């Protein structure tokens, strides 16, 4: 087959076939197009403000590495005037983060960005290894996920940074849209398609316990995972791949496989799903996608779902953690029913939109959860329900936390308290081995850090 020329420059030979439109580009035209599109995402949604300090949630993986690299490039090319820093979370899984944290440390040097690594032990008093020791060896990412969701916010608050960017890509968003669609969870679907989630809040200052609220955004929201990997490959970026040794939620793995299979037969499907998710979000009552999620009242609660550990392998689950996951699912389903009813009975809901549940609340037979599920959901269950349409977003009452939550106490704090209750079984340990303060202001908290050489070229 003769090499086909690049559709753009017509001189170099094409190396990349873009999934979104099938265009064939050479490496340099692809690289430029990829960067330019992210620049457009950033400017179109006014993601950043000049002089803003931005923490990049960095795992050493492909997405966050590409995000750091592209933001550095664009910050210089378009003079955004951003102060970019790297923030990494160490779950405290022995051996799991060693290599990826080494990668992040190299990235910090390569991109000239200060790096902070914070451990779950510092943030929650528990490493994941200790959690597993406490609740059972085999399990999934329930704790890990709940802790991780908040970890970047807690970490950012410590750094005095009010805006965290993460490497969530179009495939991740499509996966989440699909999962929420399959669960019938339109409100959550609406929140997760937004490019900006948790937002600064004026309420924060009235609560002495609260932290400043942290803005979260996803500049790679429209970038295909395929292109992220190809960008990293052709730019020879230094990233690390691994599988989480604690397996992810099986449902997410299934959704991911489905997305990838769809992509094989119809590459545009991924962006189409993202766009559909955005369009559906506009139909959800109470969702003010129109303001970009920044105005008061549209605050996306910090309990939204985001990607798990990134492994596609649905692995063995069992024991305590599986029960925990079941609990979480039951709880979510209970609240879902309530939400659906609220949507159905709301004046702006069109009948066609939510035809599945156009039932009156009194119909006990099909809707027996409706009237008491709120009570049920908050009555001593292990995990609290997420916000319903009627609930007011408040702040976690635990001193020093103040995370946004619809509950008295946020999920993470509840999990920690649950763990602490059973603490006697578990001796208090010194968890992190060292703390390096470097001349350049880089602060490295090394949790269970065993330095190892890294495979990445």
């Amino acid at each position, binding site marked *: *087959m003769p*090499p*086909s020329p690049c559709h753009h420059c017509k001189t170099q*030979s*094409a*190396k*990349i*076939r873009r999934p979104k439109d099938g265009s*064939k580009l050479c*490496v340099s035209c692809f690289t430029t197009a990829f960067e330019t599109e992210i620049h457009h995402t950033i400017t179109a949604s006014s993601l950043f403000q000049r002089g803003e300090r931005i923490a990049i949630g960095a*795992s*050493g*993986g*492909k*997405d*966050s*590495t590409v995000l750091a690299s592209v933001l550095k490039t664009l910050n210089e090319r378009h003079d955004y005037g951003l102060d970019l820093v790297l923030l990494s979370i160490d779950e405290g899984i022995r051996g799991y983060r060693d290599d*990826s944290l080494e*990668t992040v440390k190299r990235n910090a040097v390569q991109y000239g960005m200060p790096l902070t690594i914070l451990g779950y032990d510092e943030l929650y008093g528990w490493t994941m290894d200790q959690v597993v020791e406490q609740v059972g060896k085999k399990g999934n990412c329930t704790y890990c996920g709940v802790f991780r969701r908040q970890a970047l916010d807690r970490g950012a608050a410590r750094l005095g940074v009010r805006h965290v960017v993460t490497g969530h890509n179009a*495939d991740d968003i499509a996966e989440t849209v699909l999962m929420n669609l399959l669960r019938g969870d339109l409100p959550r679907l609406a929140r997760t398609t937004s490019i900006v989630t948790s937002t600064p809040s004026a309420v924060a200052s009235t609560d002495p316990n609260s932290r400043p609220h942290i803005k979260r955004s996803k500049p790679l929201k429209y970038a295909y*995972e*395929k292109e*992220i*990997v*190809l960008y990293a*490959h*052709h730019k020879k970026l230094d*990233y*690390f*791949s*691994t*599988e*989480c040794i604690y397996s992810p939620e099986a449902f997410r793995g299934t959704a*991911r*496989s489905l997305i*990838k*299979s769809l*992509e*094989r037969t119809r590459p545009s499907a991924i962006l189409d799903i993202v766009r559909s998710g955005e369009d559906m979000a506009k139909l959800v009552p109470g969702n003010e996608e129109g303001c970009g999620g920044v105005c008061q009242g549209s605050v996306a609660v910090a309990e939204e779902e985001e*990607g*798990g*550990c*990134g*492994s*596609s*392998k649905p692995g063995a689950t069992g024991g305590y953690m599986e029960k925990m996951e079941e609990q979480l699912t039951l709880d979510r389903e209970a609240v879902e029913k309530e939400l659906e009813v609220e949507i159905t009975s709301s004046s702006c809901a069109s009948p066609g939109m939510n035809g599945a549940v156009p039932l009156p609340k009194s119909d006990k037979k099909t809707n027996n959860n409706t009237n008491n599920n709120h009570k049920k959901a908050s009555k001593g269950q292990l995990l609290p329900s997420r916000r319903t349409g009627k609930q007011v977003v408040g702040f976690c009452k635990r001193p020093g936390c103040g995370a946004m939550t619809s509950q008295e106490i946020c999920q993470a704090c509840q999990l920690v308290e649950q763990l602490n209750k059973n603490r006697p079984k578990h001796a208090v340990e010194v968890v992190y081995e060292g703390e390096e303060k470097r001349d350049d202001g880089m602060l490295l908290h090394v949790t269970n850090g065993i330095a190892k050489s890294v*495979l990445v070229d």
Partner: protein
Amino acid sequence: MSAEVEEASPEYVPITVEFSGGLEMLFSNERKLSLSIPRRDKDGQKANVAFLIDYLCQDCLKDPRKDLFVLDGSVRPGILVLINDADWELEGEEKYELQDNDNILFVSTLHGG
């Protein structure tokens, strides 16, 4: 291109196969393999990428989780294949016939960081 490197064997195509993005974990942590692949399959057809994938599964993939590399007779969706650094979609995918000294890279997009 093939003739000058070494007088190629009449029976085998010398190629390089690389794994990255986490895929190397399935291949005993080997990131790069130098292989000699039979020029023709048992039906006398020229060895193509489909043949290579089959060959890799049988000879190189020791991990029992073969479905993380192949699914329904093809490379698992989410694994990118680059033929001499070009997207295999530009080269005819599995029908691409192997040439001497080709570099075939398999990159997983499925692994996390």
